[in-house]
């Protein structure tokens, strides 16, 4: 079975548990923390994935480290992944969980490109307006690209909304090149 499918199955199980305990957002945040730790801390990743450490010892150590810091069900979920030797899929499971969470909460991640750093007020305004445009909560991820000169470019899934000055100048250029002398 493909890793993505397996991860999706695990994510759906945890999501169902979260719904049952009305803690889907909390579980999602906990999984995000673990995924981020795996991304950033090489030693933690080695500890979790190396076959040199006995699974029981690994589980005991994790339990001691995470108890009280993460929800109990999430800790147990991680221990189960170790039992099933699927701990290397935790990052993909987190990604799949977030997709489920986004679909459940009707929110969409959008990539917003601006020509310069935006103020918090502008970012909030963009998020609100985009939510109106998309018809669901928009979670913007901002990045700065001075080449667009001004305006913004929004990418959501396979759709791109280009309201940049660069696009207008490109359009003007095409128009001028086509115009008869």
């Amino acid at each position, binding site marked *: 079975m493909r890793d993505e499918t397996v991860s999706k199955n695990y994510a759906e199980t945890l999501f169902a548990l979260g719904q049952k305990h009305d803690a889907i957002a909390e579980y999602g945040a906990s999984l995000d923390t673990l995924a981020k730790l795996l991304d950033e801390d090489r030693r933690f990743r080695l500890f979790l994935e190396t076959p040199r450490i006995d699974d029981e010892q690994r589980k005991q150590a994790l339990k001691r480290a995470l108890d009280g810091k993460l929800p109990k069900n999430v800790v147990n979920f991680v221990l189960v992944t170790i039992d099933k030797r699927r701990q290397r899929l935790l990052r993909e499971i987190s990604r799949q969980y977030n997709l489920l969470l986004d679909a459940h909460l009707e929110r969409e991640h959008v990539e917003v490109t601006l020509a310069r750093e935006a103020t918090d007020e502008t970012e909030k305004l963009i998020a609100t307006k985009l939510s*109106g445009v998309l018809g669901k909560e928009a979670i913007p991820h901002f990045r700065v690209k001075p080449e667009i000169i*001004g305006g913004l470019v929004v990418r959501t899934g396979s759709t791109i909304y280009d309201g940049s*000055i660069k696009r207008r100048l490109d359009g003007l250029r095409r128009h001028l*090149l086509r115009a008869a002398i």
Partner: protein
Amino acid sequence: MIVSRAVTAAVLVLAATVFVPEALRAQGGAAAEGGGGIYDINTGLSVWTLIVFAALVAILGKFAWKPILENVEAREKGIQAAIDEAARLNAEAAQLLAQHRAQLADARRQASELIAEGRAAGEGVRKSIEEKARAEAQQIVERARQEIERERDAAIDALRKESVDLALAAASRLMQQNLDQTKDRQLVERYLGDLTRERNEKKEGSRTGAGARA
């Protein structure tokens, strides 16, 4: 044989001619002594002359006449044959001459025809070469014209592209310099407002369409 007979006859005639007049002269001398003139008729001499003549004629007729005639006839025949041969050769030569003249005329006619044909063929080739050269020249001119047009269009395009790029580069630089945070935010707001309006219009349109269908 004929020659020997003729020689014998001639010897006899000569002997008669030599000895008979001598005997006659001896007789005559005797008569002259008797007193005869220059215009006197000597009957004896005349008789003897006639006898000799007759003998001569007889001898000639017997021995020489026939061979001479045969000889003459043979010669005549030979001459006639030569004349006939000459006439035949002459006729043949005339015929050959006529043939040669006809052949010469034919050869001249053929030569004339060949020359005419050659001239016509040469004229055709000349015309063909001229046509081909003219067509090639036209093609070269046409190609050159097209090439010039292409080059001109390319130059115009390049110039236009460069001008537009320069103008837009200047415009974008000016915008980057003059577009501050506030103006940029206004741009963003305006674009998002346009998007919201479009979405609302689309929604309105689909609702109207659904109502009309209902």
